[in-house]
């Protein structure tokens, strides 16, 4: 093959059957995917190693906590309330068919704490923060700012990734608590004002289904989702080709949001299996 002239190689390439082309494409995608997962894992590993290495740079962390956390509060609260409203409305009609509408308080509380609180918060932040991290770091990459950091003897992973990773890991659980509280409040409001349920009864039901294990599961999942969002956002931004330009940044930003959403779903399934089945939390 190496002895062939370029035009002969091209002819061989053009004459391949559809099945060989399919296998070639599949193999190429599989290789790229494996390479991507490996590189992203290496980035997470390097980030974890650098977290406690001096200088700790708390000022960078505080800035990211504000950008990622405080600025996301309104959208998380809004999403949380309406998740609770929809859940109570759907749940009421389904439970009424089983003559169990009285347990709507427990239904909303369990669903929001264990699943919807962390998931909805992670989804919102994957779109809002993950994509913004990719766009910011990607722009820095194509404008040589990340090379400039390296030249100035500063590790870009330590300077750019570590603060974002920590901020997401810290803020996701806090925002999840907000989303959960407002989700239950939305459910309460719907049950009491629309379906004429007794408010005290709703709260009693809610308390009966409130387990410390559920809260721990919720916070562990939220923190894990936060780490995934930050890692994917940073990785996608760092791996834009230097010549990618604005188009490369745009593609990577979309890719970051989509990859984060898929990763969150996969992680959720995995963590549920681990925490409920293996560890035995309730």
């Amino acid at each position: 093959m190496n002895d062939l002239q370029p035009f002969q190689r091209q002819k061989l390439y053009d004459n391949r059957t559809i099945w060989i082309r399919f296998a070639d494409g599949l193999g190429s995608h599989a290789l790229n995917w494996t390479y991507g997962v490996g590189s992203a894992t290496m980035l997470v590993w390097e980030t974890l190693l650098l977290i406690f290495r001096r200088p700790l740079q708390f000022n960078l962390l505080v800035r990211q906590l504000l950008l990622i956390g405080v600025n996301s509060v309104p959208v998380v609260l809004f999403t949380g309330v309406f998740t609770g409203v929809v859940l109570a409305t759907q749940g009421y009609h389904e439970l009424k068919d089983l003559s169990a509408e009285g347990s709507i308080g427990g239904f909303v509380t369990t669903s929001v704490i264990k699943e919807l609180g962390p998931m909805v918060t992670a989804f919102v932040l994957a779109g809002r923060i993950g994509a913004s991290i990719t766009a910011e770091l990607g722009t820095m990459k194509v404008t040589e700012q990340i090379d400039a950091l390296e030249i100035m003897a500063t590790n870009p992973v330590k300077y750019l990734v570590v603060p974002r990773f920590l901020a997401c890991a810290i803020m996701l659980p806090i925002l999840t608590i907000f989303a959960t509280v407002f989700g239950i409040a939305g459910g309460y409001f719907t049950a009491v004002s629309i379906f004429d349920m007794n408010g005290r009864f709703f709260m009693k039901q809610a308390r009966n289904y409130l387990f410390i294990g559920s809260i721990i599961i919720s916070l562990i999942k939220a923190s894990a989702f936060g780490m995934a969002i930050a890692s994917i956002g940073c990785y996608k931004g760092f791996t834009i080709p230097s010549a990618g330009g604005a188009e490369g940044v745009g593609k990577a930003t979309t890719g970051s949001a989509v990859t984060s959403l898929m990763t969150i779903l996969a992680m959720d399934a995995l963590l549920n299996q681990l925490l409920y089945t293996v560890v035995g939390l309730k």
Partner: protein
Amino acid sequence: MIQIRNIWKSFENKEVLTGLDLDISRGETLVIIGRSGCGKSVLLKLITGLMKPDQGEIWVNGEEITQLKRKALHHIRQKVGMLFQSSALFDSMTVEENVGFMLSQHTKLRKREIEEIVAEKLHLVDLDGTQRLRPAELSGGMRKRVGLARAIAFNPEVILYDEPTTGLDPITGLEINRLIRDLHTKLQVTSVVVTHDMDSAFSVATRMAMIHQGDVIAHGFPDEIRQIDNAVLQQFISGGNIQKIDA
């Protein structure tokens, strides 16, 4: 100061540098010329360790850098300043924060002391009073000068310039050339300038080298370069259309 030995570098089967050798002496301003895509900027990235060569050795201050880990490389990089083609200023920071970045990262100097050094460096590039501006508020020439102030903020022994006059109007280009000469005289640093702007090259060079087809095809003092009997070199210098040059 810098020795480059038998350097090979390729990208996706395209060989850019093919066994390149080059010596850069302390205190000189070496200008590297060559056509776009000939590997000039790649060479700067190899010297700073931003890229690894496929083969070969690069010695900086007596230390071979191609096998160094990031931490050891950072030690070397503290002695190197670089002006990027796009200036590469940090968008989210002010001019003062950009210029003082290395000082705030790698020294225990107080804020007040950093401010004084930044003001001194900005004075050297004729940008007094611009500390509070952001990169988006600067013209192309001002961005280059801030980039230059940032490159010299840590008192480097070597300054690398990647296309310092590209994208600038002729008058601003002349100002940048003057600054490069001034800094060379005042700071006594070793400078490596990569450019295809021949006016700029002859204006700042104490020595020149031309890269073509992956290797240095000619080098010498500016007057010698004008006399070397090499068609590719002379065509590049004169910008004439003598014959087709194979890229």
